[in-house]
């Protein structure tokens, strides 16, 4: 979707403001927000793509005025409601009122180190050979899907070069919507800064994205 999360090249958002000796968390609730989110992820009812879409699919004013852990919690509440783990009544009363879906797993403290160490690899076999090879000239597709995609707006309809053929990865555009993993080859594609930003771009700049095969056409 052309949502508020797709920020590359947007202007007026102010300076970066790095923080000296930044703590890992700025409040105790951030710790719990991280933990609750990771625990709920192990229920087995959604994937990283659906959770990303639950975070990004919101009003720009809401998205841009929320901190990142606030966005996580808003996204998590949406996922928990969608999949029947919490109800509006639960949230309104701040306690368990209604029943819940049976999760596939409940993460126990003793299992946390192994679960974090394993992570969630997204590489999958692809039944066909890669369509592109290193050095190929490509042009990215120009589209405006209403659902999830990982092709940023600034990189649509742009000419670039394949720098690396990666692996087959789960395709987020369908995986986010319960339409299957449909793995595709992923490529690192490099663009000249001027191709993206025009004549005033930094002449020394190149920008790369990692693009699924269906985002690309030969150029």
């Amino acid at each position: 979707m052309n949502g508020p999360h797709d920020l590359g090249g947007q202007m007026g958002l102010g300076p970066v403001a790095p923080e000296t000796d930044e703590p890992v968390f700025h409040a105790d609730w951030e710790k719990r927000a991280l933990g609750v989110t990771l625990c709920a992820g192990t229920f087995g009812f959604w994937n990283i793509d659906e959770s990303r879409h639950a975070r990004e699919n919101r009003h720009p004013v809401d998205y841009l005025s929320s901190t990142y852990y606030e966005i996580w919690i808003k996204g998590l509440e949406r996922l928990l409601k969608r999949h029947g783990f919490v109800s509006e009544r639960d949230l309104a009363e701040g306690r368990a009122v209604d029943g819940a879906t049976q999760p596939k797993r409940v993460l126990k403290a003793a299992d946390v180190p192994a679960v974090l160490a394993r992570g969630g690899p997204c590489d999958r076999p692809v039944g066909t050979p890669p369509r592109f090879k290193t050095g190929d000239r490509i042009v990215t597709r120009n589209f405006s899907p209403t659902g999830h995609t990982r092709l940023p707006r600034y990189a649509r309809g742009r000419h670039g070069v394949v720098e690396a053929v990666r692996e087959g990865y789960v395709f987020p555009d369908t995986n986010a919507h319960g339409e299957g993993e449909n793995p595709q080859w992923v490529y690192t594609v490099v663009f000249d800064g001027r191709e993206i930003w025009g004549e005033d771009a930094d002449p020394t700049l190149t920008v790369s994205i990692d693009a699924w095969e269906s985002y690309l056409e030969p150029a």
Partner: protein
Amino acid sequence: MAARVRALETILTQKGLIDPAAIDVIVDTYETKVGPRNGARVVARAWSDPAYADWLRQDATAAIASLGFTGRQGEHMQAAFNTDETHNLVVCTLCSCYPWSVLGLPPVWYKAPPYRSRAVIDPRGVLEEFGLTLPKDKKVRVWDSTAELRYLVVPQRPAGTEGWSEDDLAGLVTRDSMIGTGVALEPEAA
């Protein structure tokens, strides 16, 4: 927001869906175990051992795993080596993708709109805000982490560190130097 998160944790705990002790372990992991010291070990090894540096260049996932750093948000890794000609900078314009296994959790600025919007269009301006001015003729390569590949910048080894141990070298490798918003510390700063 504190009350909202507490309520959510309470509801899920009452329903038997989460183990609050699991949250404690997760938090402890990222506060005390998994952080930029991991990445600094990788960089220091690459500076010290050309064969390891080659491996890191060819197969970062395996080379990093060999030092014991694996897992969530580091499942698929690529190293980007800074050179005399090119400075590398990593961003996730779409969300907050970051190599947790080697750098820990991302800083607030990395996840916030100013960095995500500007790193791809005005990287030199962004770097100035970190106190880093690049030579005009140095190429800037920005890596937008749009898939599940996570990037670790390998900064250039500072001059005057010949013969240093890996432990001492790791002390020069800052978190920001592995994102590309900084460079390695000079020996006198360590």
